[in-house]
């Protein structure tokens, strides 16, 4: 090979060939699409919500009725007909669903994860894992239907004073819905714990219970917490099941009082569905309140995701 040929061969610049550039651009655009979408949604939410509040509406060039941001954030009455937009009535309802579903999904999900990761035989796993995936794949409208038709009447036999639409049944069904998420993310975290640590435990004369609770769970704690937060974000954003099961009457309830759960209420997502399917006119105040609720919902889930990332970073497993 002559020097010229060698020179030509070594300076081909394969990295910048048209094909490489083309594919790189294509993949970048695909990846960029999700970012663009996210940004568009945020911009839309913020600009539309801005038209709702008295303080920002003039900036958007909106005339007509607006709502006070303070009344919106601190009011406890949500009554569109009388122009009362107190989002707390909706936020507390969502909070109730979150607490209620957490009470169900966290213990059951973690217990399932421990069973799958530490106790289950290969055979048991091969049945349980797909079953959980199916549970996760059931359309949420089916869950809502299930709550209304089965869970509420079943609860009624125990608690006669329970309403047809109630937060308890909605919480239960959302809890069931997010069990697979808690279980599967927690199990991933537990399975990632190196086997050497289990061996160390067993070698010391630890029982399965000792190893599961004293070695595996502490070592995978950050993954388990992440699963809680992600699953609860899902519970907060869950719409269809709560719309069906929780009813349509907005009221401000105390989330920490168990009796509250026997009544129906209107979580944020369900309120948005109600607004969209009702006879409100586009451009009106009620219509704009939709975006204000959406923004609040978005901020809550965003904060949860940030917490989740923080927890995962701060308490990252180091084995």
């Amino acid at each position, binding site marked *: 090979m002559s020097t010229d040929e060698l020179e030509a061969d070594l300076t081909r610049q394969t990295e910048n060939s048209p094909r490489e550039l083309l594919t790189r651009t294509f993949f970048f655009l695909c990846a960029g699409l999700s970012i663009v979408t996210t940004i568009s949604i945020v911009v839309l939410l913020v600009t539309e919500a801005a038209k709702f509040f008295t303080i920002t509406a003039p900036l958007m060039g909106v005339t007509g009725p607006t709502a006070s941001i303070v009344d919106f954030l601190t009011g406890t009455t949500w009554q569109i007909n009388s122009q009362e937009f107190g989002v707390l009535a909706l936020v507390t309802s969502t909070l109730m669903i979150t607490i209620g579903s957490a009470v169900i999904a966290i213990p059951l999900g973690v217990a399932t994860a421990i069973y799958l990761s530490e106790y289950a035989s290969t055979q048991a796993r091969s049945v349980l894992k797909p079953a959980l995936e199916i549970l996760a794949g059931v359309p949420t409208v089916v869950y809502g239907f299930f709550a209304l038709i089965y869970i509420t009447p079943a609860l009624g036999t125990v608690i006669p004073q329970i309403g047809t639409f109630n937060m308890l049944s909605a919480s239960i069904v959302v809890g069931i819905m997010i069990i697979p998420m808690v279980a599967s993310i927690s199990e991933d975290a537990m399975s990632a714990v190196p086997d050497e640590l289990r061996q160390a435990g067993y*070698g010391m004369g*630890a029982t399965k219970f000792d190893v599961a609770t004293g070695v595996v769970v502490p070592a995978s704690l950050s993954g388990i917490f992440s699963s809680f937060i992600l699953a609860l974000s899902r519970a907060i954003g869950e719409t269809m099941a709560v719309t069906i099961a929780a009813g349509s009457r907005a009221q401000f309830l105390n989330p920490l009082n168990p009796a509250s759960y026997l009544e129906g209420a209107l979580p944020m997502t369900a309120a948005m569905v109600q607004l969209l399917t009702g006879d409100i006119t586009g451009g009106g105040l009620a219509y704009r309140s939709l975006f204000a609720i959406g923004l609040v919902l978005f901020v809550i889930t965003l904060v949860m995701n940030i917490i989740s990332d923080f927890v995962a970073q701060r308490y990252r497993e180091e084995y």
Partner: protein
Amino acid sequence: MSQQNTDEQTTSEQDAGDGGSPDPTDDEMLIQTDVSESVDETSGTRRRETVVRAEHVDVWYDDNQALSDITMEIPEQSVTAMVGPSGCGKSTFLRCINRMNDLIDSARVEGDLYLRGKNVYDDDVDPVALRRRVGMVFQKPNPFPKSIYDNVTYGLEIQDKGGDYDEIVERSLKRAALWDEVNDQLDESGLELSGGQQQRLCIARAIAPDPEVLLMDEPASALDPVATSQIEDLIEELARDYTVVIVTHNMQQAARISDQTAVFLTGGELVEFDDTQKIFENPESQRVEDYITGKFG
């Protein structure tokens, strides 16, 4: 105790095990069945009681036989080394002693293995209780992601053992020759330590509940030469109180630290078991001599 053992030898399970072994080779004849005697003769030290006695132990992983007809006696307060090429079953044998093989679904153990006269493979033996008497140190240092203090007390915690934990932690870490290096950082994670320190922490963790036997599965193979030499010194020290059984692929290490050496060769066969000095200077078996002098393996 010995009476009971003799009785055990004639069980039907034993007979089946014997019949199953391919050929009672000459090598088998070479195995010293009474180690305590030989210790008496050669070194003139006091007679040592047998702590672990294996009789016709076979191990299978599914259909692959990993160990074949292992019979040997391990005397107390000494270092017994198990050497041999990869896949010869030396680690498998170690894991038979504390029944860690139970954790492997495909593993099947036949034959009898006695800890001070009690067959640990009897139906009524709880492997968890057994492992509390037979400590283990693994190839790769595996401290828990907990503080140094909590690592050492782990065995006591799970056994609900009372006592002065501070004192036990100090004593165990001193015995593991780690105290001077870590006594001001007991609350820090065990994972902050260097590899050699981690392995000594694992040794401290293993000896804190005061086991009878200490099993070590190539404890220095993942360590640098300095850390290895520290661990070796420590093992010799530990043999004053404990019965140490160590698996190693390093012949020099076995020669340096062990009192007895068992040579396993490919096929899961125990070819020769004798005083370390005898094994290295004048082995009975040609195969062992070939292995030790590096002709194969």
